[in-house]
């Protein structure tokens, strides 16, 4: 067994080694590779009267992303990533697809302006252009993390950026008196392509000016515009423009015993429609403000923060309010049930593993969300119609780094009622951490126990009798990583969701106005557990075999209860 593992390590290690190779300083390689085999089985009450849904599925794929970076001179870099993908049942190459995943040219023009053309990852601030994290990201869980990383990679989620296709330029001026530097940053990208008839082109553009007064004081002004060009579609005269802008001021100071930092951001948004039937005649305008104080005690490895936020009900910034996750999308595995007539509701297992549920584009509409997953800030920090405080505490452990913990609490209220004068209140508490048990026992191998808990309560004390709201949601996550042999880990994990209560979900029209409500009742419990083995050839190259078991029960409709068992073999490589 030991010899076999050694051979396998050597073989794949050589492969990884070659992947890092460079022909010269002018050319380098990078990319990713994946082989996935997924055997699933679905059982439960919902299949009792279902005679057509397949009970078992075997899916898989093999893909390879090959990236090449060429530097023809010291000021220019060209990067291209191509993908070859083959479904596991695409025998003899019948299911193979080729695509260009990324193509970017970047460099420095005249030793002054930094530019990039092609695929660009862009972000500004959480209220103007920001790709907020999706639900069920309470902590890094060794049992699930590789799947979350794959979802991020497949959908181009890098930190909080949105992948755009366009032109970006940055220009910096340094001063020897008054202020230290001024940086100008701009981008223009294509957000949507015209159909040449009725749907016009939509572009995204932003400009940012950052002034560093001194190392402790920074001012930043930015504006972003998502707009349509009516003339790009032959039979279209309508136009929409979503504009948002903000000013961000940051200051702080540091000493050996304590650091502090204060960030204040405030801004406005405006939405205008032209030649659109039933659109608001007057521009929709509103503003936001966010003040955050951060304290850090380096010797104690402790950080604390306190924020106040006020985001107006009509504040619209599509770049910051577009959601990653679509809860109404069709899951890739066992998409339908009840004789293939009913779409299977997305479960927590799908959210973690299914890359097709996620959105890659910025859209002006406030899209659907699931109140049981996230009700307080479904559109990130820029969620409109919210006011309140947020506090955070982060401890990275003692000098031996034997444990790390963080906790957050937020209390938000609506600013304007929806369908009633009564306002919702949102209380969110969460804590997560990891205990490195091996460090207590002074073992050389890793034994880590991860745990996280999140509780969210939404309440509204109504005045009409029908407008009471009470919805609770509890998320829990546990993860275990035990290195039983060098680089060979036993993995265990659990993800749990329980939600009960009632809510009203707003139906919005094309102009984001509420036109109706759907009553939402929940009495839901989902438990997803996992166990398996993983071998880490390197930190970025793993081979794992895991078993997953999902139990989903909706007490409001017990006939839809089901279990989902999946055995997954995954070889994953990032390089």
């Amino acid at each position, binding site marked *: 067994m030991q010899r076999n593992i050694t051979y396998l390590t050597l073989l794949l290690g050589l492969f990884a080694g070659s992947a890092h190779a460079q022909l010269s300083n002018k050319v380098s390689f990078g990319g990713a590779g994946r082989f996935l085999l997924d055997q699933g089985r679905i059982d439960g009450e919902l299949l009792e009267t279902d005679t057509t849904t397949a009970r078992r599925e075997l899916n898989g794929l093999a893909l390879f992303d090959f990236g090449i970076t060429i530097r023809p001179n010291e000021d220019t870099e060209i990067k291209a990533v191509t993908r070859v993908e083959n479904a596991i049942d695409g025998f003899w190459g019948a299911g193979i697809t080729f695509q260009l995943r990324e193509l970017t040219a970047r460099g420095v023009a005249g030793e002054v302006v930094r530019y990039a053309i092609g695929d660009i990852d862009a972000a500004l601030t959480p209220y103007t252009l920001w790709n907020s994290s999706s639900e069920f990201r309470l902590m890094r869980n060794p049992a699930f993390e590789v799947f979350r990383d794959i979802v991020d990679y497949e959908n181009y989620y890098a930190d909080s950026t949105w992948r755009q296709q366009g032109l970006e330029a940055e220009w910096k001026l340094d001063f020897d008196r008054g202020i230290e530097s001024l940086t100008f940053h701009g981008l223009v990208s294509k957000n949507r392509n015209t159909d040449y008839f009725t749907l016009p082109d939509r572009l995204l553009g932003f400009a940012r000016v950052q002034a560093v007064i001194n190392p402790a004081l920074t001012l930043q002004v930015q504006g972003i515009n998502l707009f349509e060009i009516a003339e790009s579609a032959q039979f279209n005269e309508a136009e929409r423009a979503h504009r948002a802008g903000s000013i961000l001021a940051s200051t702080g100071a540091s000493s050996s015993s304590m650091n502090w930092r204060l960030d204040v951001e405030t801004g406005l948004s405006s939405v205008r429609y032209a030649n659109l039937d039933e659109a608001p005649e007057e521009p929709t305008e509103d503003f936001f403000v966010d003040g955050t104080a951060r304290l850090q005690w380096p010797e104690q490895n402790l950080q604390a923060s306190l924020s106040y936020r*006020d985001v107006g009900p009509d504040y619209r910034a599509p770049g910051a309010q577009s959601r990653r996750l679509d809860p109404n999308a069709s899951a890739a595995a066992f998409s339908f049930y009840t004789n293939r007539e009913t779409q299977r509701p997305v479960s927590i297992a799908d959210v973690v593993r299914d890359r097709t549920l996620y959105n890659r584009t910025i859209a002006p509409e406030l899209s659907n969300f699931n109140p049981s997953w996230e009700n307080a800030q479904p559109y990130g920090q820029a969620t409109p119609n919210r006011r309140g405080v947020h506090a955070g505490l982060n401890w990275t452990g003692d000098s031996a780094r034997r444990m790390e913990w963080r906790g957050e609490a937020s209390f938000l209220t609506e600013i304007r009622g929806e369908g009633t*004068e009564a306002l919702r209140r949102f209380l969110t508490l969460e804590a997560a951490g990891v205990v490195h048990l091996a460090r207590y026992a002074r073992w050389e191998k890793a034994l880590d126990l991860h745990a996280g808990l999140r509780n969210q309560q939404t309440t509204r004390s109504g005045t009409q009798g029908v407008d009471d709201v009470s919805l609770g949601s509890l998320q829990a996550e546990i993860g275990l990583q035990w290195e039983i042999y060098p680089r060979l880990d036993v993995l265990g994990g659990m993800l749990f969701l329980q939600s009960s209560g009632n809510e009203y979900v*707003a139906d919005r029209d094309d102009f984001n106005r509420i*036109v*109706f409500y759907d009553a939402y009742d929940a009495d839901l419990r989902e438990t997803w557990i996992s166990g398996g083995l993983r071998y880490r050839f390197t930190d970025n190259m793993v081979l794992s075999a895991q078993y997953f078991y999902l139990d989903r029960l909706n007490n409001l409709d017990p006939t839809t209860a089901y279990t989902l068992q999946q055995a997954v073999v995954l070889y994953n490589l990032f390089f």
Partner: protein
Amino acid sequence: MNNWKHYLLVPFGSLLLLGVIGLGSCRELAPEGPELEDIFGEFQILRPLTQDRTTVDFSAGETVEFIAELSVRTDWTLTIRSIETGARKIIQGNEKLIMGDVARWNGSVTFAPLFSAGEHVVASMQFAAFPDSTMFSDTILITGSRPLPEGGILVSDFENLDQVFEAFSEFSFEETNNGVDSLFPAAIGDKYWYMFGRDNNGSVFVCGLRITATSAQGTPVFEFPTENEEKVWFNMFVFGTGTANTVLVIDFQEDDNLNGTYVASQEGTYNYQVPIDWNGWRILSFPYSATAISTNGGLGNVDANGQREVNRIIALQFILLSAGGQSDNSVGFGLDQALFTINGPYEP
């Protein structure tokens, strides 16, 4: 730390924060969206379903206004059904005051056959959340049926037996029907074209019907008020017989050189293909831009001038295919009310 400038930001930022918080407290606080009480309050029928007339002549432009009032907004469905033929018109909404244009009927139909003069209809209103609260209107007599849309060009309604229909079939096709028929109720009028039979040799093609512009419009090619292929729509009622593997192909033959004849090996045919997997009448509508050039060698796959041109359509063909490509495969459909409309699909 010894630079005093950044300390200015603390009072400045605090003042800015307080100012904006103060501004926030001055916002308009009127609730957004419809009132919840209006949707989820107690359900009552405040005014039963009535209509503003008991006879209607749609050919004269008359309409029927249905009136009712509810205590809350809830999803409702108004179904207008012909007592004689079962033709149905569905209107859906969630308003609590139903009057004016909310539930106005102009004689159009949702499920064929069409409403005809002399028929009696009755309307019922159902509520998704309150299934025991259905209410009915009085009986209404139709004295005149809805006319063709303005600018519409009728290819055939299969009522005029003097019109020239060119029927053809595969030599080994066991043909039981390929002609004007009246076995079951037509979508409109009394007659329709019916194709039904068995593919005996797995040849895919079963039988077809060709109608020229000359026989339909009396012109060498169909003449439209626009040459924009996005704005010219073809529409037709299709009766599905529930037979598996039935496919309908509609060919539009273009006289590319405008010499009055169509040569399949030199001039283009653009077609639209659809599996007929339903039972009963349904309307099929698509713009001419949705067609694609024929892929059959020598049968319109070469376009003399390389362009799809809506103003050069010399004839239409309706082809019955057996998609299974296997023998002993019974397939069939009915066709009625084939017509072109301008600017949008036909709303019967």
